[in-house]
């Protein structure tokens, strides 16, 4: 579904991604874990077209999307749920969701949008309850649901999720991860999940990659990564001794 080879990107003279490669098959949940500053968000933003790449190749369903503008990538079926949710605080929940349906400045048919809204409300009944509330008044977890819901309104086949668990209470973190797993189960979505919460992400992902200072240093089935001592020490907050 998505195949990335040697992706390079950065900010001005600062190189952040150094030849990063990754692939996701249809229906897979894949996570990229790494510390702060490893380049995880840069990686997602570059895929989503929000940041220019200086080299490499990004194939989405065999089409090279590396040089496409962000809105084209969304219309092809690949949507980003940005870090820090990026909601419109003074607008209502419903208005925020409907904005997600405005792909390439063109509104989709009202019935279609209505249908999609209903699906989002089935997935997140909490959003239904708060439909007319202003987005700025929602809790962190609800805001994250709203950000995901908004992305779903563009009818994506693949979601890029940037740190969805960030800043959430532990109980809410679990809930959000459970929702992400449902997105695949119930919507058949392919998911690329970037996370600092390695344990939570690896628990729902099929495979994972470890990004360290802009380079992939490990990759494999989630089970293998959970057993890897480097991953345990650096990202799972567990010393190998505790394992023994």
């Amino acid at each position, binding site marked *: 579904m998505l195949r990335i080879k*040697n992706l390079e990107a950065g900010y001005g003279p600062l190189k952040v991604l*150094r030849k990063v*490669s990754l692939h996701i098959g249809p229906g897979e949940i894949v996570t990229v874990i790494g510390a702060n500053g490893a380049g995880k968000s840069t990686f997602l933003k570059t895929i989503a077209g929000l940041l220019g790449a200086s080299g490499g190749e990004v194939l989405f369903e065999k089409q090279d999307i590396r040089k496409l503008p962000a809105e084209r990538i969304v219309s092809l079926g690949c949507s980003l749920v940005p870090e820090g949710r990026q909601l419109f605080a003074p607008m209502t929940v419903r208005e925020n969701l409907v904005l997600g349906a405005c792909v390439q400045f063109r509104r989709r048919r009202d019935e279609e949008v209505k249908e999609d809204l209903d699906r989002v409300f089935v997935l997140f009944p909490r959003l239904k309850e708060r439909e007319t509330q202003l987005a700025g008044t929602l809790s962190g977890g609800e805001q994250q649901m709203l950000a995901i819901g908004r992305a779903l309104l563009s009818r994506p086949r693949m979601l890029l999720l940037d740190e969805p668990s960030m800043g959430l209470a532990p109980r809410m973190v679990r809930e959000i991860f459970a929702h992400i797993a449902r997105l695949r189960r119930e919507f058949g979505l392919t998911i690329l999940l970037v996370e600092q919460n390695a344990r939570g992400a690896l628990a729902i992902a099929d495979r994972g*990659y470890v990004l360290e200072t802009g380079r*992939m*240093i*490990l990759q*494999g089935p989630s089970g293998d990564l959970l*057993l890897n001592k480097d991953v345990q020490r650096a990202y799972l907050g567990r010393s190998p001794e505790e394992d023994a």
Partner: protein
Amino acid sequence: MYWEPDRECMGKEELEQLQFERLQSTLNRIYSHVPAYRKKFDALGILPEDIGSLADFSRLPFTTKEDLRENYPYGLFAVPLREVVRIHASSGTTGESTVVGYTRNDVRIWSNLTARVLTMGGVTKDDVVQIAFGYGLFTGGFGLHYGAEQIGASVIPASSGNTHRQIKIMMDFKTTALVSTPSYALLVAETIREQGIPPAALSLKYGLFGAEPWSERMRREIEEKLGIVATDNYGLSEIIGPGVSGECREQNGLHINEDHFLVEVVDPETLQPMPGGETGELVITSLTKEAFPMIRYRTRDLTSILPGDCPCGRTLRRMARVRGRTDDMLIIKGVNVFPSQIESVLFEFEGTEPHYQIVLDRKGGLDEVTVLVEVGESIFFDQMRQQRGMMERIRKRLAQELGITVEVRLVEKKTIARSEGKTRRVIDNRTL
């Protein structure tokens, strides 16, 4: 039957992406974790990120047995020792032994790979697998043991040696699959014949043989004498042990576990890639090893990559059975000779036994080669003329094949010493 169908039958493009991703992270890890590799890379001015494709890969330096010795014992490990859960060492047949390590993940992956190989050879959870490889520092026993357990087969860790006891176990425990060297399987076959045990009295169905070169003729002989399907499998401790490649029931070459190992075939002299399909030295790079990654390891094993698809459905490419080792190469009268060439000639002759020995002497500054060949009773007790005729025919065929003249001597069955491990094929009495 596949063990990991999604891996074993992967599309080419998909496989190449996976190999490349794994290569990249292996390079990133060894560059930061293994000073010996970093030094080699720095000397060539190569950074891991300079390798942008599988094709660039040929810019990387080779790793040899000498590198392993120089870094003895732990210098090439990419993880601290506390993360290593297993240590093996090579047999040291050709010099000082070398040490390799495995993390918990490495052991798991290894078990999976040997499970693949065993499955290819016919083993299922219903089988009783007798492992007659040494258990110990040698990787053969443990490697295949874990794979067989992974499959769910009933594993008998018989280890090597004590042939009479092995045969008793085989009969009493109703062993259905034998894992050993091919020469050991022949020894078992000969021993049961001597004891007057008909092959049908055994429950054996499959034999999975490796750890030494053998031939097609030897396979047929083992299959007939033991009434089994015999497949070849390959591996070496420096890379992982058994599990690098194995034959499926088509018996047409060994499927390489390419999602974990990147292979090349190079000319052992020039180190340039051999043109498609030609025999050369096998070079292997590990793609998933954590504790002991290997970059372009020169195996010294001679093989070739076989063309075409396999009817079994696996897309993993196949290598030819190993024809010998680059360091088995004998230089006789200035000509390069591989014992495997002599072996394949001998096997063309009816009545010879698959046991032979090459004896090299130097008289008056000239090399002399004598090939001792065991022959069956039918030939020995017949007339001298027949014997002489056979010797002459073998001599001519060898001269034709090798380009040098050799002496041939026929010897009685069981004259050449049998070994329970690797057979000593060459006695070199030349003093330079």
